[in-house]
């Protein structure tokens, strides 16, 4: 019997609420807000309270999907990245760098977001960078 409460930070937004992910024998069973966290003092929003729900969800995408003939099909990472890179290049060439926009995410790390805006500005040449919450 392996019962655990793992302290972690909510991935839904940038507030950084601390919560415990409850697991029994490796399967996530619940979320509890951390009372001793100075950030959220034992409180969470509805998304935080359900932070355990998506991690092991069957509906979660496990492979990249590419739309072919109007339908999404699973493809390899190589194929997905090649396609994305070639289309980004095409669009940039045919229009201008500002034809492309970049959305950062609260679900990734600060460093990953840094890399994304760096890629947008230095790689693509656009300042069109925004946060996913404005989608």
């Amino acid at each position, binding site marked *: *019997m392996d*019962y655990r*409460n793992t*302290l972690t930070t909510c991935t839904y937004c940038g507030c950084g609420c*601390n919560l*415990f992910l*409850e697991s*029994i*024998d490796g399967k996530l*069973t*619940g*979320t*509890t*807000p*951390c*009372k*001793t*966290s100075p950030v959220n003092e*034992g*409180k*969470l*929003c*509805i998304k*935080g*309270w359900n932070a355990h729900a998506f991690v092991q969800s069957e509906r979660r995408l496990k492979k990249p999907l590419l739309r072919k003939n109007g339908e999404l099909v699973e493809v390899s990472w190589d194929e997905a990245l090649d396609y994305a890179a070639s289309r980004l290049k095409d669009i940039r060439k045919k229009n201008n760098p500002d034809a492309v926009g970049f959305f950062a995410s609260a679900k990734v790390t600060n460093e990953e977001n840094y890399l994304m805006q760096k890629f947008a500005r230095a790689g693509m040449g656009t300042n069109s960078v925004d946060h996913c919450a404005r989608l």
Partner: protein
Amino acid sequence: MIDQVKQKINDLLSNGSVKGVVALVHTNGNVAPCLYQKGDDLDKLCLGDTDSAGDARYPLNKVLVTLSRQYPDEVFGVLVRGCDERGLYGLYRLNQLDPERVVPIGIACPQSLALQCECKKPWPDDMMAGETSEGIDQKGVANAESNSHSERFSYWKGQFLKCVKCYGCRDICPMCFCRECSLECEDLVSKGDLPVEIPVFHLVRAMHMADRCIDCGLCDEACPADIPLRLLYKKTAQIMNTEFGFTSGIKKYEKSPLSLMGPAPEK
């Protein structure tokens, strides 16, 4: 007090009378619910006190219900205060826990915590550590009712308007265990809309708490909008007491009047 609790848990685990004990652990600067099993280090055991008494309490009975659903044949120990024991009695009554498979480890709350909680019984019947504090008179409801109807109406309307519909009051509640919840029934509560339906949302929950609420106050502590939920549930509990002479979790095997058919039981 904590040494007595450690000793008791150690005894229960080493003589094999329980599979594990649900309590709290103080680790990496935080307090968390924890399951202690044979051979586990009890050094970091914690009773839920950090800056002040009982400021890091968690719904341990909820953990127990989760574990019991997964391992229905095992016996578990659980750290309980007065409110948690009332919760155990309620969960036995509602067939969510089997009293044969639960070993409570009862501790009394200090006077400061009893006062802060306005707790009428800050100790469990089955107490193994701590000293009994005095029960506190229930004045909160009477105070709130000293205002006029219109003042109270606008006060509660203002409180309910603050709700961000996080469902934290339900999710933290050790007495909420239903697999289907009325608050997720779209005929009562529309999905994704704010402000919340006033007063349906909060009154549905208050009604469901009438014969369940054990006055632990975890809902108050979990509410990001500081809605005085505990006061609301104290009121519904008071109605149950006045009308039926029933208080949730005070007597071990007492049935709720709301689950009986026929005439009202004698007070």
